[in-house]
């Protein structure tokens, strides 16, 4: 682990311990210690195996640690020298089987030496490196108890407590008898001095408060927790952002670890010092409780509940948040009202000004009172309606499988105009600037004057358009079964760009912050640059996507359902999954997002209400038939239509 060059100018970051600088075997120091060979080197020091020739007839082996006192300034050199003297003397005064014994110390020129007992064995660092996976928890608990014993000794040392300060796997050895020996009390750090310039890498075992000021004994307990975390997960804290242990829950990485042990380790790793174990004794007691054969796992002092996954959003089991919902005897959520049409509903309801509009396969467009579900009017077309209606001024506009686009008066469903297309209409119309945009199975996207239905232009692509268009800043975006996403200028119908994906696009686009989000039957959710049509990111689910994405501006997340049965939430700028929630059937419905919740239906017959932030289930409703339409949200009520032809309203 050698590093850079020794700079004679004194601000040393990285010390060179190149081969020519090391002592060669046979060299004798102080006329007494004969160097036999190098056993290890770190950033600050080299450790040699040596023989103490004072004992001529015996083979008295010891370890010699060599450090450089390379400060440029003479005063600084003296200062370091004094610090080292102090440290060496403290070490020498310690007497514990698990603490490395110091025999001697001296200096020769710029080099300072410490002579200690030689430990035959491996450090915990070597052990974890050589192991294929994490270490068994029984061993980790055993070692941790031994380390606690040493810490109890050190922290209670008179006249002054000794703080280990640099507890980490490379400083803990296991001797040939399987016993813990602590080495290197950070003594080499004396010569580190202040670091100028940027250094890379953090210690990983140091608690946050130690960066503010002097070390205290409880810092050693954090370091022990960090060491245990490493041994149990094989994730090196020095390679992760500092203080992020909670992002790597132990049991998620190593399910063999018991809940009790995870709780103990995480308690030791709390950010705030007062929330951790108050002493090494307390830590030891908590560990002893784990090794007792009783089935009860004692919680560590402070009554901390077992740690649960925070980041990465594994959804909890059903947890009903307090709400105004009422429940039936079977525990199913009760709707405020329900209305039955005569056939399936795949269209999504639209609610405006207290009226709910929805189309059904029974050919009718219905208008219902949104508060109480009472019937207002219905209008019969010649075929099923799967398109969702759109309301503009006094009109409600929608398409039907009878190939027509209809505009009716909101109040009473009187026909105002119709506009023909040449095939079924599944796409839902959108209105912008008094123009209606809608796609048809006849391969065309239509621009109709909203007042009279007159065709302003139509744009033909190579296959059906079932996706519903989205208009944003003068551009209309839509997808087609021809496996492309299009962007047209709404005035001139000029093609701005076309982005090809691998399979039909039934999903409807959503535009946010200069990006178009859309799903495809090729299993992917795409984020496409709205101006140029370049794909910025894409993520793959495990099933086809017909659902249309929805965005939460406040949370920066984009949500989508997949036919793999999951609802996904991604960070919209990177496409990284933040959480996913599982349902029991393919999802064709699109999510509806409010500030706090995501509503989505599944073909498993449920309407789900999930927490928008972490995907946890808030409540769910069983409709006894698949829900492919998108829920609507208005005036604090949620509406959903199911394949069984019913429309349900909830007050969540």
């Amino acid at each position, binding site marked *: 682990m050698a590093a850079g060059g020794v700079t004679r100018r004194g601000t040393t970051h990285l010390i060179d311990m190149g081969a020519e600088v090391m002592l060669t075997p046979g060299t004798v120091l102080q006329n007494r210690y004969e160097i036999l060979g190098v056993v290890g080197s770190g950033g600050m020091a080299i450790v040699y195996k040596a023989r103490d020739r004072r004992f001529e007839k015996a083979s008295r082996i010891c370890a010699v640690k060599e450090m450089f006192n390379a400060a440029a300034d003479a005063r600084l050199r003296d200062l370091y020298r004094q610090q080292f003297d102090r440290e060496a003397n403290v070490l020498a005064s310690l007497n514990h089987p698990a603490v490395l014994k110091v025999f001697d110390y001296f200096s020769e020129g710029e080099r300072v030496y410490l002579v200690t007992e030689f430990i035959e064995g491996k450090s915990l660092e070597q052990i974890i490196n050589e192991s294929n996976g994490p270490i068994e928890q029984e061993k980790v608990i055993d070692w941790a108890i031994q380390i606690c014993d040493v810490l109890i000794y050190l922290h209670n040392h008179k006249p002054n407590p000794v703080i280990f300060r640099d507890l980490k796997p490379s400083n803990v050895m296991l001797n040939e008898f399987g016993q813990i020996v602590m080495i290197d009390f950070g003594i080499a750090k004396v010569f580190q001095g202040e670091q100028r310039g940027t250094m890379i890498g953090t210690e990983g075992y140091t608690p946050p408060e130690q960066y503010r000021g002097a070390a205290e004994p409880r810092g050693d307990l954090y370091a022990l927790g960090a060491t245990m975390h490493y041994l149990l997960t094989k994730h090196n804290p020095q390679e992760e952002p500092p203080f992020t242990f909670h992002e790597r829950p132990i049991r998620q990485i190593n399910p063999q670890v018991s809940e009790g042990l995870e709780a103990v380790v995480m308690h030791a790793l709390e950010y705030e010092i007062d929330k951790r174990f108050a002493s090494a004794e307390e830590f030891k007691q908590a560990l002893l409780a784990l090794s007792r054969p009783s089935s009860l796992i004692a919680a560590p002092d402070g009554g901390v509940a077992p740690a649960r996954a925070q980041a990465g959003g594994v959804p909890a089991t059903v947890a009903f948040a307090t709400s105004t919902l009422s429940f039936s005897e079977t525990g199913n959520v009760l709707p405020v009202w329900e209305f039955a049409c005569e056939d399936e509903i795949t269209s999504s309801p639209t609610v405006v000004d207290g009226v709910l509009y929805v189309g059904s396969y029974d050919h009718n467009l219905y208008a219902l009172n949104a508060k109480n579900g009472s019937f207002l009017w219905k209008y019969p077309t010649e075929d099923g309606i799967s398109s969702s209606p759109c309301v503009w001024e006094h009109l409600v506009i929608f398409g039907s499988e009878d190939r027509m686009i209809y505009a009716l008066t909101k109040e009473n469903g009187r026909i105002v105009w119709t506009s023909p297309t040449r095939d079924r209409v599944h796409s839902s119309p959108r209105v912008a600037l008094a123009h209606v945009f809608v796609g048809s199975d006849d391969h065309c996207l239509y621009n109709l004057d909203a007042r009279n239905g007159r065709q302003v232009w139509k744009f033909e692509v190579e296959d059906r358009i079932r996706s519903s268009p989205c208009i944003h800043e003068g551009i209309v975006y839509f997808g087609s079964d021809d496996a492309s996403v299009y962007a047209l200028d709404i005035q001139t119908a000029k093609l701005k760009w076309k982005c090809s994906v691998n399979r039909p696009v039934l999903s409807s686009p959503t535009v946010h912050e200069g990006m178009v989000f859309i799903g495809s039957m090729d299993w992917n959710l795409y984020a496409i*640059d709205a101006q140029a049509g370049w794909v910025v990111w894409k993520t793959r689910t495990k099933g086809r996507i017909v659902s249309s994405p929805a965005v939460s501006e406040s949370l920066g997340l984009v949500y989508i359902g997949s036919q793999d049965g999951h609802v996904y939430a991604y960070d919209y700028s990177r496409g990284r999954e933040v959480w996913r929630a599982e349902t029991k059937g393919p999802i064709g419905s699109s999510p509806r997002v409010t500030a706090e919740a995501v509503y989505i239906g599944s073909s498993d017959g449920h309407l789900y209400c999930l927490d928008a932030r972490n995907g946890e289930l808030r409540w769910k409703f069983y409709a006894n038939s698949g829900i492919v339409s998108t829920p609507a949200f208005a005036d604090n009520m949620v509406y959903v239509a199911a394949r069984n032809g019913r429309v349900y309203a909830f007050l969540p």
Partner: protein
Amino acid sequence: MFKRFFGKKRSTSTLVPIVEEKESLTIIVGAATDKGLVRDYNQDALFTLSAQVSQGQDLLPIGLYIVADGMGGEQDGDRASSLALRTVANWILHEIYEPFLTLGTAAGLRPINEVLTEAIVTANSKVQEQLPHGGTTLTCAFLLGTNAFIAHVGDSRAYLISRNSIRQLTKDHSLVNRLIELGQLTPEEAKTHPQRNVLYRAVGRSGNLEVDTYLQSLPTGSSLLLCCDGLWSAVTDDEILAIVNDSASPQMICRRLIAQANDHGGEDNITVVLIQVKG
């Protein structure tokens, strides 16, 4: 492949403009680097490439802007930042510009975020191999139209600046930033903390590099500033905002920012790139 239908329209309605003509936007860029007043070498590196391509009546800007701050003994610092920067620029030219210019469309182009991330991961391997003692920060912005796609490792920064506000877009991968996140330090304390320069993530130091990516649309009149810590540790946000809003050109802004950092001691190298969106 799609029918042009102006001739085929059945109805005789004239096209009434329903949307105002969009003003064409221009992108102006300034860039400057300086070794400061204290250091002997400049270990920073920067790269700018501003291209435009016509798309019908519009002009589509396609730009690439990179800053990198190297570290490591003697010369490894400036070699590391240079190597990483050139590797990233090369990668993006090869994976985005070249195919786009060859095909004439974006069809078949890989997702932008993927390419940017890969570019930095590749630079990471190269620096590790060739300069084992060196490392560098790297923050790059790929500009497409007025959307900026940023990929980032380390404690160099990207800021979004408008008339009245300045906002840091990237997260510093530094120990002190982590302490600030935990409420253990205030940003003021961080400026003088003995370990303010310690990074937990940098290019060229370890395998498995995680790259942060960000997306920012740039409104008209706004600027994107890329800079190394030599600027932000010496000049306050308010001072930066004032200079940006009070200068005649991005190049002027860059020079004044450097002068301001030097006025405050110039203890580190200073490097800035400023991209302005003008309506």
